[in-house]
């Protein structure tokens, strides 16, 4: 019985930690983010398993986590508010030559990070982009300035 509670607590706490710790800007997860998640995950599993290395315990906890994850995904699909809480919202970083410093500051981004994404689009300076958006996934999408407009 305690095993189920430990597994549930471990899963929920892990979800919270990943959400709150955040990640570095970039299309894919930088290797250090992987490492950090692994570190935190490994510590979580040590707490969950404690000293019970039996197969029973392992199966019970794996099933608990899988169920928890299933419920989470279900809730995320059903409730917009919950999805917002879990994934966040897209955020504007740059628009029409204006940097959104409140967003940049709170996310601990520098304009350099956005410039890297702008260069990735083949543009040379911020004026060439009409929008730069930080997606929920963490990647920065740049939309070029449309000269024909």
């Amino acid at each position: 019985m305690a095993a189920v509670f430990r597994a549930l607590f471990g899963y929920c706490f892990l979800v919270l930690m990943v959400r709150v710790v955040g990640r570095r800007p970039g299309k894919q997860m930088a290797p250090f983010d992987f490492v950090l998640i692994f570190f935190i995950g490994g510590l979580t599993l040590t707490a969950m398993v404690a000293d019970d290395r039996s197969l029973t315990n392992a199966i019970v906890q794996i099933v608990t986590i899988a169920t928890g994850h299933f419920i989470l995904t279900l809730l995320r699909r059903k409730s917009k508010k919950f999805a917002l809480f879990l994934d966040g919202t897209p955020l504007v970083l740059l628009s029409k030559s204006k940097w959104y410093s409140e967003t940049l500051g709170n996310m601990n981004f520098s304009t350099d990070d956005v410039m890297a994404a702008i260069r990735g689009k083949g543009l040379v300076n911020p004026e060439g982009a009409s929008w730069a958006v930080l997606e929920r996934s963490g990647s920065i999408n740049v939309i070029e300035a449309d000269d024909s407009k």
Partner: protein
Amino acid sequence: MYTIIHAIIGYFFLLLVVRVMVRRPGGQLTPFEFVIVFLIGGVIILATVGDDHSVTNCTCAIIAVGLVHRVVAIARGKSRTFSRWIDGIPMVLLRNGEWQLEAMEGLRVDPDDVMAAARQKGIRSLDEIKYAVVEKNGSISIIRNSD
């Protein structure tokens, strides 16, 4: 309390190992390097937790790691110098038809890598490129001549 100290030292040690292994500070790891990092990470976890497998202890260790990561993230945002050390800086590889040899040799990038990145953009040959920059995360950005 030793758990927390261990956790923090473990975090910085892992940061160092990953930093040393990749060519670019923010670059990608090959699968083999991942395995090594996982191994080291696993050992560090065992050392951090010690004989105490209680939820209390592990949760505190996790919080400690999360807190350090957060502090590093804030420091990276606030201080340019700190950010350079941890993440590196973008470097120009090709500029107006001239290869920047120091950058290319230092980062061990060769013209083929640059051309591969250029082909992704639909560019057919090197002379169409005005600037080629290798970003902090190791990807190569191409800026065309026509722009």
